[in-house]
């Protein structure tokens, strides 16, 4: 079967800065693919090239077998794109926004009316469809932002951090809907800082850092690369920077990064056995108030691959 998306060796430079550096991955039909990366990793820039908003300096993109550079119009028909920033007319109602973008997608009037009802339902905004978007809360705007991309029932849905600024309840609702759409056969490209969202929704994950895809595989494959390494979350009162410094010197610790004013994340081979060594390494730089040893997960894989945390 033709993959939903194939991109190869995508490069984008701004001046002498290469912000996307030979990025390549593919998404099979019906597959949910997550692109995980910290701020400035190049996720949005990559997506802009995938949806035909930005011309790559090098490389190619095929959507459903169609080259985006050769036939952008046909390729765009297959894509539902949700931009990272809210892209709506605040002075119009959600319904009016949907109608405008739906017509740009060539949906006939009659069909459009019923689709608008459907997608408003889908994002849980049926009751507020006739209110101006400018009067919406941040989460409602986000949901409308997503609704616009669903109107034409795309084969490939591309979501660029769709849950930023959404309360946990709405986030769960959005994820449920996205999962349901994937269940119905829609292919998905999902970018996020939120590891747990990607873990939940996506079957395959690419990790992107400084413009490069540093790893790509199923969650299990990525975690397997860690070997017997555990993730240890340490909380302490005291000088976290100094403590992290000391922890890095402990045999078996491959990473130790400060993740908050009183928290440190470590990658430790055979985590449990090394706990006493870790505690004594912290020594007088602070008083340890909590230790958590976590099974290898994407967060650990990310730290292992990039030496940094996702959220900063």
């Amino acid at each position: 079967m033709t993959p939903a998306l194939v991109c190869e060796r995508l490069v984008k430079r701004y001046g002498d800065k290469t912000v996307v550096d030979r990025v390549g991955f593919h998404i099979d039909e019906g597959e949910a693919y997550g692109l995980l990366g910290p701020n400035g990793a190049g996720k949005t820039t990559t997506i802009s090239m995938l949806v035909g908003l930005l011309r790559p300096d090098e490389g190619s993109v095929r959507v459903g077998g169609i080259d985006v550079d050769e036939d952008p119009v046909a390729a765009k028909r297959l894509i539902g794109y949700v931009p990272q920033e809210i892209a709506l007319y605040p002075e119009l109602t959600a319904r009016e926004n949907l109608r405008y973008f739906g017509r740009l997608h060539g949906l006939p009037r009659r069909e459009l009316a019923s689709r608008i009802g459907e997608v408003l339902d889908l994002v849980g905004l049926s009751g507020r469809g006739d209110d101006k978007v400018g009067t919406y809360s941040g989460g409602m705007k986000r949901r409308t932002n997503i609704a616009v991309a669903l109107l034409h029932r795309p084969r490939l849905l591309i979501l660029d951090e769709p849950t930023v600024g959404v309360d946990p309840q709405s986030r769960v609702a959005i994820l449920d809907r996205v999962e349901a759409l994937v269940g119905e056969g829609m292919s998905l490209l999902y970018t996020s800082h939120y590891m747990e969202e990607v873990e939940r929704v996506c079957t395959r994950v690419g990790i992107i850092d400084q413009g490069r895809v540093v790893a790509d595989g199923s969650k299990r494959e990525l975690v397997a690369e860690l070997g017997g390494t555990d993730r240890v979350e340490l909380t302490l009162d005291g000088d976290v920077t100094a403590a992290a410094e000391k922890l890095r010197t402990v045999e078996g610790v491959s990473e130790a990064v400060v993740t908050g004013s009183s928290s440190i994340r470590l990658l430790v081979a055979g985590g449990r056995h090394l706990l006493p060594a870790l505690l004594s390494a912290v020594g007088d730089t602070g008083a340890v108030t909590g230790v958590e040893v976590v099974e290898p997960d994407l967060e650990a894989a990310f730290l292992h691959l990039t030496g940094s945390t996702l959220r900063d």
Partner: protein
Amino acid sequence: MAKTLGKSTLSALLVVGGHELRSRLRDGTAPLIALVAPILLATMFGLALGGDDDPPFKATIGVVDLDGGEFPASVQREALNTDELKGVLTFRQYPDEAAARGAVDGGESGAALVFPAGFSESVGAGRGGQVSVLESPESPLAGVVARSMVDRISALVEARTLAVRASLEAGVPADRVQLFVEENGAAGPALSLVGDPVSGGKVDLAVHYGAGMAVMFAFFVVGTTARSLLVERQNGTLDRMRAAPLPLWTALMGKSAVGFGLALVSMCATWLSSVLIFGASWGDPLGVFLLLLAHVFAATAIVMLVASRAKTDAQADGYTLGVAFVFAFLGGSIVPVYNLPEWLRSVSLITPNGWVSAGLSELAGTGAGPSAVLVPIAVVTGIGVVAGTLALLGFRKGRFA
């Protein structure tokens, strides 16, 4: 396939255009800029400058004839007989340059021409000659008339000098040449000042300046489209439009078309209200319409070029404002072109404003038909094509088109 694409593109253009127009109507800018402002403009200029109350343009030009020959006499005779200057011009004689200078400074004459002694003879003999002009800053128009007369005289003198020299070279006896020149000189230098701002002496000032303002205003009207384009870019809605399955230029064209349409309505509103309310005469309607149409096209292209270089809506506003004023200034819509230094006057030729003003003067002043303004229409359209091409290239290069 091509046909369905064409159809869907057209309907997308309509969707984009309809959306743009609705939002212009919703925020009230469309009726304001397309109707209210231009009608006000025409009314203000009509009240301030229009009608028959204006004293018609008159100029008194002093003549110092130190030559006493046929040439100065024929210049005056001919000038008084030309269509443009008949009834406008009066000549007053002074014995010498000092007397003329005093008269010009005192305001008795607007300007003066000084023919040096032996002028006619010198020209007849193929040695050329020079007429000088005395001017006063108080009477710029008279100065212009005098100077343009001298320009014509110089051209004639030069032509005759060449002819006489050629005849002499060819071996025609000098006295026969002299005779021949004098006989033909009596037919007089054919003075014509067509195309000069002086011919505007017969154009209603309200029309000249009202039209000039409308020409400038067209930039502002299209500017609202440029601004909305930039706002949409900042809001991300432009990217959303660009992510729709449409040729990339659809968004740009749909919005530009609305700017174009509103600017056309705006210019026609100035024109029609000036004609209907004040009975002003703009000349042949088809000619006027074609000129306005060409101008709106050029203005749209220029503003889009400006927008393609702007990063924010405020920047687009600023650029549009700057371009509109500079072009209006150069094009003679704010001060008369002949008040500008020579080099700026030639710069005026790259502005659509200058050409449109010249074309409108031609239509209003001479009562000529559309064929008389084909050159201005072609040039202005050409300016639009160049600017439009550059704009498209700019948009393609940026993240726009």
